[in-house]
């Protein structure tokens, strides 16, 4: 089935809003949509929501013979799958251009950047090594799949634990999780990709484009970076000419975004670890909001029919007590193992502010200039109207 086509009316409106530095969902130019990271019961299962985009990843390991060229290194295989459930435009088991691009970029992001210690995955050199498989499934597509995929892949890798192996001479035994605690992979750094969409020959840029913005964009620049500001890969598509200044500016923005996301991932991992250690509630099912109709319930009291006359007056006296105090409260527990930002925060896209601002624009610009002197680029600050013209 084909995807719903984008009408001329939507295209024109989108381009017009971008020119006016607004976005359909009320975000600012450099804002990401809400990111929510959820873990499953198993190690290595992770789900990431980026606005309405939803991806899932499961890491698994198996024993394999290493490549002859690298006998003492483990192997890493990544696969991305686009199911037709995510978008009507995707077809099952069909190699599309987008799928090939995502697979290739994820491989570059994880394997080529050497984000974890491959040599520690070796058991017997040249004979047995661990092979790590990262299977990413796209559950819902609302644009910017690459960023969601890179976040989910590195998070599930950091969450994953492999069985411990002990070696005696040439013999080795793989211990089950009951015998010995499984051990995590040694992650060196977390490469995270940040996507920039360009419009009007590169005069306007947007971070984290959603589906409709992706449909009208002219060029896309993807920068994968870790929090040490090391670029892991950089990819420009759409055949747009970018200036050196634009690319360096994008990498500056990316470094700030990557720092934020890495912090979020680490917070989520830490929360999950703590919940598991304390035998608290964790996993995906716990993170879903419980939509209960009844927040309180009353215990059934056995009815006593003897000496009704005597107790009648007592009951009348007691009746003053409101029923709510007798109700048994069952508060909704907040789940562990969930790291998320922005949930419940009201969008500050300025129904009021923007219109007010029009009048006060002149005053504000002078204030901003003095503010900028601090030379700290706060990119996600949605209060400021940053100037986005790049050339």
């Amino acid at each position, binding site marked *: *089935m084909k995807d*719903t*086509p*984008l*009408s*001329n*009316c*939507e*295209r*024109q*409106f989108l381009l*017009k*809003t971008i020119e*006016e530095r*607004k976005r*359909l*969902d*009320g975000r600012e130019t450099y804002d990401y949509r809400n990111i929510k990271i959820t873990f499953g019961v198993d190690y290595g299962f992770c789900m990431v929501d980026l606005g309405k985009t939803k991806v899932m990843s499961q890491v698994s390991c198996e024993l394999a013979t290493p490549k002859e060229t690298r006998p003492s290194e483990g192997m890493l295989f990544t696969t991305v799958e686009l199911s037709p459930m995510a978008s009507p435009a995707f077809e099952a088991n069909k190699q599309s251009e987008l799928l090939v691009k995502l697979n290739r970029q994820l491989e570059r992001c994880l394997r080529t950047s050497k984000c974890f210690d491959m040599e520690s995955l070796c058991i017997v050199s040249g004979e047995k090594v661990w092979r790590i498989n990262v299977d990413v499934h796209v559950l819902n597509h609302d644009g910017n799949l690459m960023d969601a995929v890179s976040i989910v892949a590195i998070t599930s890798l950091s969450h994953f634990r492999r069985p411990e192996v002990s070696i005696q001479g040439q013999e080795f035994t793989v211990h089950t999780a009951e015998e010995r605690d499984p051990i995590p992979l040694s992650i060196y750094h977390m490469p995270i990709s940040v996507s920039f969409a360009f419009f009007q020959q590169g005069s306007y840029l947007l971070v984290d484009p959603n589906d409709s913005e992706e449909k009208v964009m002219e060029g896309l620049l993807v920068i994968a970076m870790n929090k040490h500001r090391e670029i892991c890969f950089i990819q420009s598509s759409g055949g747009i000419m970018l200036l050196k200044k634009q690319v360096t500016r994008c990498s500056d923005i990316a470094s700030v975004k990557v720092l934020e996301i890495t912090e979020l991932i680490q917070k989520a991992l830490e929360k999950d670890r703590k919940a598991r250690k304390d035998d608290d509630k964790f996993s995906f099912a716990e993170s879903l909001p419980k939509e209960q109709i009844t927040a309180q319930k009353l215990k059934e009291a056995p009815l006593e029919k003897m000496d009704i006359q005597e107790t009648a007056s007592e009951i009348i006296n007691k009746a003053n007590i409101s029923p709510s105090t007798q109700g048994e409260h069952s508060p909704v527990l907040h789940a562990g193992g969930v790291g998320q930002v922005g949930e419940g925060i009201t969008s500050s896209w300025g*129904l*009021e*502010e*923007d*219109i*007010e601002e029009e009048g006060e624009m002149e005053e504000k610009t002078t204030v901003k200039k003095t503010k900028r002197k601090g030379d700290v680029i706060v990119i996600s600050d949605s209060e400021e109207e940053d100037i986005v013209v790049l050339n």
Partner: protein
Amino acid sequence: MFASFKDKIGEAVLPGDVFTLELPSPENKAKAEKLICGPGLRRDGDNVSVCKCGVLRHKPPNVFWIDSQQKRYVPVKGEAVIGIVTAKSGDIFKVDVGGSELASLSYLAFEGATKRNRPNVQVGDLVFGQFLIANKDMEPELVCIDSCGRANGMGVFGEGGLLFRVSLGLVRRLLVPQSELLAELSALFPCELVVGLNGRVWVKAASTQHTLILANLLQSAENMTAKQRQQLFRKVADGAL
């Protein structure tokens, strides 16, 4: 005769629920009443079974239907929808209406169109039309004229405006005569609003900011109570005016 229905009006029903009709005895056939089953109800011998989950509604004297929430559109004859022209082939346009199949639209089905005088429709344009043919076995056919050959509000959309999607339930709420939601919305900003029964809404206001606000308000009004909605609208009105 409709006793079993009458108790359930306004209540939620589920697929598989069965209403039995107490048919009058053959002697007094003259008293037999007609029952009209709307969407979600299906006749099944002497019974009427439910095939959608939703709330049972009734319109006197004898119309019953189920008010359900869904996003997928199924074309129905006579419904007015917003379509996107996806292809031009010979003398017909292929129009995406959100259904399982593309609808066809003849170039002659516009007001004042003749073989010489073709309407100016480009690929990607929006059209507002109604279904002439819509059944499960045939390709749906749209027309942009009524039975008298008048446009009657239908046709190709002009420049500007924003198209977005909402659920089918919200669209029906908007189109109810004296719709509260619509009245509140029109009190906020003056705007042009086209509502298609296929869940597409086109809105155009004085500025892009107003259009954006209206679109976002409509999309968020879906799951709000009347009180919450009024509160939000008041906030917008205070902030914007």
